[in-house]
């Protein structure tokens, strides 16, 4: 192929500019958002706690000392002790493991399944779309916690089944979100261009449609982790999730609620932990939304 001399160009001012990917640009504007950084800080804080819980906890998770039942916070037991004489501080630390685990794994599950179904529905349309969308509608017709209880009731109460239940009830949210995003992305001219080049459907889906549909999913996933943690706590509270003696925050609340007057610290600290984690994920999610939403960028 002949190579021509470099042609006249309208501007060359970009010559010195570095390559900036849309993701990197998103991170840049995320960094400027102080509130979002606080959220990220809280999330990282709890993640570190979760990972290093065995090193950080002064007592074992199920170490009982019946002589100090429901003792108030003291230098030995920072958050006090519960009705079995267990150290609440240690249990809250271990609880971070369960809550984050439930949040991350269940949401990953619903993102993967939801995206798969949503992309197929959005890209192929027609009867496939109708079938998948109606299934989503049916699932959304139930209050989510009720659906979760129903799923747990079928599978049997345990932490793992609570996790599955939470994953299932979140599938339609992600599915519908990505379906609508795919519907708009597939109208874009670069999808038409990709087809004109001769690409197969699979390549277009995974190289063009999916990366351009991902931003709202990341935002939604972050916010959904917060909800999933609350849902797991709610199921734990109802006795449908974590089983004793697991140190799950919701379960801890449930077990201690009869002592709320005499020993409020037994309820207070797990409650604060739930609140802080959820707050952290929500702040982070809001920041991500501002940073990644292309509508706000242009």
């Amino acid at each position, binding site marked *: *192929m*002949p*190579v*021509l001399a*470099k*042609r*006249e*160009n*309208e*501007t060359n001012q*970009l*010559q010195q*500019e570095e*390559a*900036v*990917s*849309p*993701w990197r640009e998103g991170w840049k504007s995320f960094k400027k958002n102080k509130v979002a950084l606080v959220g990220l800080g809280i999330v990282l804080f709890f993640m570190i706690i979760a990972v290093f819980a065995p090193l950080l906890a002064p007592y074992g998770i199920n170490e009982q000392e019946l002589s100090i039942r429901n003792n108030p916070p003291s230098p030995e037991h920072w958050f006090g002790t519960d009705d079995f004489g267990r150290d609440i501080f240690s249990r809250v630390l271990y609880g971070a493991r369960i809550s984050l685990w439930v949040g991350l794994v269940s949401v990953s599950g619903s993102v993967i399944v939801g995206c798969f179904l949503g992309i197929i529905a959005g890209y192929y349309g027609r009867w496939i779309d109708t079938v998948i969308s109606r299934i989503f509608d049916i699932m959304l017709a139930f209050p989510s916690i009720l659906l979760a209880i129903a799923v747990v009731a079928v599978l049997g109460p345990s932490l793992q089944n609570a996790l599955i239940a939470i994953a299932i009830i979140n599938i339609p949210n992600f599915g519908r979100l990505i379906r609508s995003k795919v519907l708009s992305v597939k109208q*874009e*001219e*670069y999808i*038409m*261009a*990709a*087809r*004109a*080049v*001769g*690409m*197969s459907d699979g*390549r277009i889906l995974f*190289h*063009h449609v999916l*990366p*351009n549909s991902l931003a709202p999913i990341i935002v939604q996933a972050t916010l959904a982790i917060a909800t999933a943690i609350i849902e797991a706590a709610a199921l734990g509270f109802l006795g449908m999730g974590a089983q004793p003696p697991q140190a799950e925050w919701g379960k801890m609340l449930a077990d201690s609620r009869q002592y709320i007057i005499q020993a409020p610290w037994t309820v207070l600290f797990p409650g604060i932990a739930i609140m802080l984690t959820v707050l952290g994920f929500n702040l982070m999610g809001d920041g991500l939304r501002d940073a990644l939403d292309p509508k706000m960028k242009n």
Partner: protein
Amino acid sequence: MTKPILQVKNVKKYFPITGGILGKKIGDMKAVDGVSFHVNEGETLGIVGESGCGKSTTGRMLLRLIEPTDGSILFDNQDLRALPKKEMRKVRRNIQMIFQDPYASLNPRHTVEKILEEPLLVHGIGDATERKKKVSEMLEVVGLTSYHARRYPHQFSGGQRQRIGIARALMTNPKLIIADEPVSALDVSIQSQVLNLLKDLQKEFQLTYIFIAHDLGVVRHISDRVGVMYKGRMVELADAEKIYQNPLHPYTQQLLAAVPIPDPEYYQADAQAAIQFGTLPSPYVIDDSWMNIESERDDLVEVEPGHFVACRLK
């Protein structure tokens, strides 16, 4: 060299109109209603018409990006409509497209290098190093530098993006390029640069163009032959100069008369004349009474060598 590379015969696209709660089909929207033309190797065929006349749909049907309802498309004596989907994708190596909006036609999450490399990857051309080399060569060809390869589309101006779009279309060494309003989204000052680039590339790579546009001046500048479309039909097709000098079809005549002329004296005279007839001069008011008279469809008739008109002449 007047060998036809593409022959389009009676191509139609009807979009169903649905109505009622059950979404039953109640009629057809005839976006393209029996269009026939041919393109010779190495020439540029301009297709003009107002928005909604079906010119873009026609362009997209040639690549089967929109499936035609009826008709045949012969490319290199191969009927594209008869090809299975997989074979059709391979043919697209030889027919490429340049799109109107350079802001929308490049994937914002891919670097320029990835955008240009992808056609090679899809058609299995070259290995990794050859592909990289070809990408930087092609960037130079369209007037960018290989330094630009690592950047993302949003870091470029409209004109530069359109150059990237042109480079993408050239990557697989196609024979035919369908340019769908390639300059109408650009600033007037950039338009001529891009048009000249397209002309240069045509000579260099022996390309054949189908140039779709609504701007009559642009089409005249670049085309060897021009086809005029109106309401999904081709109403006149002739050498570019013939169309502009001696338009025969009433619609072509009105379309040319609607071209704004940068002369205030002329405008006033024109307006005066129009007022006498009780209408204001407006490019949107086009007398289509001839359409009603010619309720039966007319095929293109060759009134003089190479000059086809789709209407009985008075």
